[in-house]
């Protein structure tokens, strides 16, 4: 099996695994399984692990440890950021700006807020997936309370210019939330220099455990949130619930590893991605859905549409290659990728697309083998199609 779906999830880094084990072990003199909120020695030791992890996460993104709020993952982080910011401000008359290519957990949260009376503008990106800062500024109204954009799109790898947009929004007094799940560990993130107010993170996209994430909540100027989970007042009152020490320690270790190798990883992944694109380019009539400019594309994602093939058959013909597909089954209840359609791709182009996402364990030999299989199967499906004209 060739795994090229690292944007979906990643395996635990061995160092992360080792860091987590002492907090899971039932024995041990240190009792590291203790509740980190408890006021006794084992609780203090567990708390120390949590706080070390908080500092490790903060370090990767240029933040202060006290600005990191633990969550169960990026879906919760995005919910807390968007609903929390709007509810703290008051929903009446509020306006939110986002884009049509956000993750479902942002779009569904915005749609929920619409049912509560919030007005939402969904910006349409350019064909390369980029929403320009000028588009955002044009959409602002005196009632705009929040702009929410993802730093790196999870389907195409398109990079939004959040570093240029952030000071423009700060100058206008508008809160800025960024979903940075696919950006963390791939791009340089420095929140000391970039005035983003709220930023969502996930552990399992970065060789950490599933079920844990974080929300950066800026202290100065202070971003204020209404909590979405009540009880106990954990995490400065923003997110109650007993902290999952082993998960948090794992996320911290994963982010420390990522910080130590980010530039090397990004360079290697970018080289492999281009090698994959060059190899696939022997096929005529394929469309690169990811931006072709290195400045606009995250290094680990390549999204390609293959004209003349049906998406489900393309996916089914590659059982030994784990990739994501923009295809919908023929059932009327499912639709092709809404992200690719928002970029102006036709249903057929969106349906016949594959997202290759590369990771630390990806090798040049895997890229070559995967490309060879894709080329072979695309050619076969095209030859089989009565609609294909070379």
């Amino acid at each position, binding site marked *: *099996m060739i795994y090229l779906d690292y944007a979906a999830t990643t395996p635990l880094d061995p160092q992360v695994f080792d860091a987590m084990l002492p907090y899971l072990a039932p024995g041990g003199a240190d009792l590291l399984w203790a509740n980190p909120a408890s006021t006794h020695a084992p609780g203090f030791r567990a708390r120390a692990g949590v706080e070390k992890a908080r500092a490790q996460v903060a370090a990767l993104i240029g933040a202060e440890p006290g600005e990191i709020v633990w969550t169960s993952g990026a879906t919760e982080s995005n919910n807390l950021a968007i609903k929390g910011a709007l509810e703290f401000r008051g929903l009446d008359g509020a306006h939110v700006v986002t884009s049509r290519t956000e993750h479902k957990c942002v779009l569904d949260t915005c749609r929920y807020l619409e049912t509560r009376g919030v007005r939402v503008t969904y910006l349409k990106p350019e064909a390369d997936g980029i929403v320009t800062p000028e588009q955002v500024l044009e959409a602002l109204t005196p009632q705009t309370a929040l702009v929410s954009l993802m730093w790196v799109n999870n389907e195409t790898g398109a990079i939004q210019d959040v570093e240029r947009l952030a000071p423009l929004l700060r100058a206008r007094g508008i809160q800025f939330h960024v979903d940075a799940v696919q950006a963390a560990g791939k791009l340089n993130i420095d929140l000391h220099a970039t005035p983003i107010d709220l930023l969502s993170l996930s552990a399992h996209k970065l060789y950490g455990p599933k079920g844990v994430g974080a929300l950066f909540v800026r202290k100065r100027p202070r971003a204020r949130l209404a909590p979405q989970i009540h009880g106990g007042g954990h995490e400065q009152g923003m997110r109650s619930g007993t902290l999952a020490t082993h998960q948090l320690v794992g996320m911290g270790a994963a982010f420390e590893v990522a910080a130590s190798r980010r530039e090397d990883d990004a360079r290697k992944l970018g080289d492999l991605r281009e090698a994959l694109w060059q190899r696939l380019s022997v096929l005529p009539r394929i469309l690169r859905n990811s931006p072709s400019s290195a400045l606009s594309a995250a290094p680990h994602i390549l999204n390609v549409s293959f004209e*003349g*093939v*049906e998406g*489900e*058959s393309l*996916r*089914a*013909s590659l*059982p*030994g290659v784990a990739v994501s597909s923009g295809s919908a*089954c*023929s*059932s*009327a209840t499912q639709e092709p990728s809404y992200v690719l359609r928002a970029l102006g791709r036709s*249903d*057929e182009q969106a*349906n016949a697309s594959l997202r290759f996402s590369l990771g630390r364990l990806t090798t040049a030999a895997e890229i070559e083998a995967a490309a060879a299989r894709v080329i072979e199967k695309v050619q076969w499906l095209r*030859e*089989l*199609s*009565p*609609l*294909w004209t070379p």
Partner: protein
Amino acid sequence: MVTGAIAVMDAVNLLQNPFGYSAPIWRLFNEAPHAGAFPAVAPDIATGTASTPAAPATLRLQARIRDSRVVDTRFRAHGCPTTIAVGAWIANWMVGRDVEELTQLGARVLRAELEIPDDRAHCALIGEDALQALLSAIRGISA
């Protein structure tokens, strides 16, 4: 012991047919017997094509007819694995049969033979429609 054996079998099946298609659909999709087209239009070759608004699918069947009997077939398909399997199954089934026998094949039989689920019923219907179109073409060359 038994649980372990089942787990191993499931793992093998998942690798070989990870998307859960029925066994006949998966086999026909991968083997695709009679895939292709006859090289040139000939007086003894009939062609029938059908599409469906339910999915981006087109199926083309070809049959070489001699003495009211199908002596060879080809199919081409654009669509999901079930559509391709339907084309392959019909193309294989037709070989050696009298033309009159072709009239007896319909979507119900296709669904049963290929274990086609309800949400893919349109794939069987496209097979029936392509066969009907082929029969019309056969009658054309016989007339």
